[in-house]
């Protein structure tokens, strides 16, 4: 660890009121992400992963504990962290290009430059020629890629991705996984990634936090010693298999 972490959560708890009942979503979470690190949160559905991202993004404030951005627990995080929510949230009345330029538009950046950059990146995201399409005209994979491109065009140093491959079928998911590796190598931003797919987590991450079922807390932290750049071929690497088995055991999924 060279410098102070760019994101650091200390003792974070969060509960929700649902129909008068208190639902404890997260309990005493401490985690961090260093600059340019790929950190994954993995855990069963409903364990509070999305809630954790909402807290990091600044959409929610923790009940207990604190979240520091660049070492400052009182820093404003809204508007300074790129977030790709679990559902793609493309605005149905905007054409693709206007959807992906939403971030620069809200941040009042130079429109011409942002547009130029978006047009450059469209081919890499397989969206060339669809600039003028409405979201409903796009396939599930294209929508996800558009949402990811919109997120990256916000050009913040920290990127939160909530199950970006979740809505895809297995085949598309695999192609997208390779492609996501490529994207990360290229953009080199700090990524905090949420998934419930173990292979995906190990293949992509530098470090993984394993969450328990609700109320979510961290039951294991793993470094993944695979070299960069990563590739699909590493799924037979002993380091990959070791990490995978450890996570599956933590999640209680080993031996079926």
């Amino acid at each position, binding site marked *: 660890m060279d410098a102070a972490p760019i994101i650091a959560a200390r003792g974070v708890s969060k509960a929700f009121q649902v129909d008068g009942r208190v639902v404890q979503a997260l309990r005493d979470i401490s985690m961090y992400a260093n600059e340019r690190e790929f950190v994954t949160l993995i855990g069963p559905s409903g364990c509070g992963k999305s809630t954790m991202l909402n807290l990091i993004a*600044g959409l929610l404030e923790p009940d207990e504990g604190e979240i520091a951005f660049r070492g400052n627990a009182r820093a404003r995080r*809204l508007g300074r962290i*790129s977030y790709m929510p679990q559902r793609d949230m493309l605005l149905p*009345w905007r054409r693709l290009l206007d959807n992906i330029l*939403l971030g620069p538009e*809200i*941040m009042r950046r130079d429109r011409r430059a942002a547009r130029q950059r978006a047009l450059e990146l469209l081919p890499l995201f397989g969206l060339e020629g669809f600039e003028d399409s409405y979201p409903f*005209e796009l396939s599930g994979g294209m929508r996800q890629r558009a949402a990811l491109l919109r997120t990256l065009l916000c050009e913040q140093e920290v990127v939160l991705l909530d199950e970006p491959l979740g809505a895809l079928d297995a085949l598309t998911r695999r192609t997208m996984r390779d492609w996501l590796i490529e994207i990360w190598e290229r953009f080199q931003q700090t990524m905090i990634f949420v998934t419930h797919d173990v292979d995906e987590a190990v293949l992509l991450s530098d470090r993984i936090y394993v969450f328990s079922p609700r109320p979510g807390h961290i039951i294991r932290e793993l470094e993944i010693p695979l070299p960069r750049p990563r590739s699909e071929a590493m799924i037979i690497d002993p380091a990959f298999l070791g990490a995978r088995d450890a996570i599956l055991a933590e999640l209680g999924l080993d031996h079926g």
Partner: protein
Amino acid sequence: MADRATLRRAIGTRANWVLPPLGLILALLLLWQAAVALFEIQPWLLPSPLQILRAGWAARPLLWPHVWQTTQETVLGFLSALVIGLSLGILIDRSPRVRAAIYPLLVFSQTIPIIAIAPLLIIWFGYGILPKIIVVALICFFPIVVNTADGLRATDPEQIALLRTMGATRRDTFLKVQMPGAMPMVFSGIKVGITYSVVGAIIGEWVGAARGIGVFMLRATASFRTDWVFVSIALTAALSLTLFGLVTVVERLTLGWHYAATRQERWEEISEEKR
């Protein structure tokens, strides 16, 4: 490039849409015409469609000022309703307290019979165009307010959350998410409103006016010109339909995304069911 077949199919679909109602109306008119001739019904009791058409054509110069007057009242009343309706709808969405205060009052305002208010408006504002504008506005602002407020309220909170992560202000989320998302609902409200607006103007005229389709209608009734009564009914319908059609055109132009998207969803549902 639209090839011939698609073009022909598109025209075909249009035709499927327009022809049945047109055919039905034509059949009913023919039936009416035949019945009047067959049973030798007196024109003062029920004139035939052709007689009505002829009477209307002959009275053209007489009718024009009346139609123009009613059109003005309707359009001005509708525009006031639009401005007031949108503003109130937005206000209601902004503050729960305003919602709690205004909503019951709004519903109450709709339970007052317009025919009872119209004479009061004449007492307060005289015989000019203003009381008619107010009646029209009163009749058509309600669906606009309610639909605007409900449409704004129905915004997906996650869309707003996304914009907030980009550092959006409340103004940004309102202009870029809430308002565009509410537009389909707003337009439904506008369409309901505009349908009633011409009738509102005519009620306003009945209570006291010098000109307007309503005035013409009253005079025709008083002098047993049944054909002219029917002419005014036809004019009322034509004016309502024209205004409704204009709104629909504006709606199609601004909400193309909405129509295309819902059509696609329907289509997907149908294909699901078939499978």
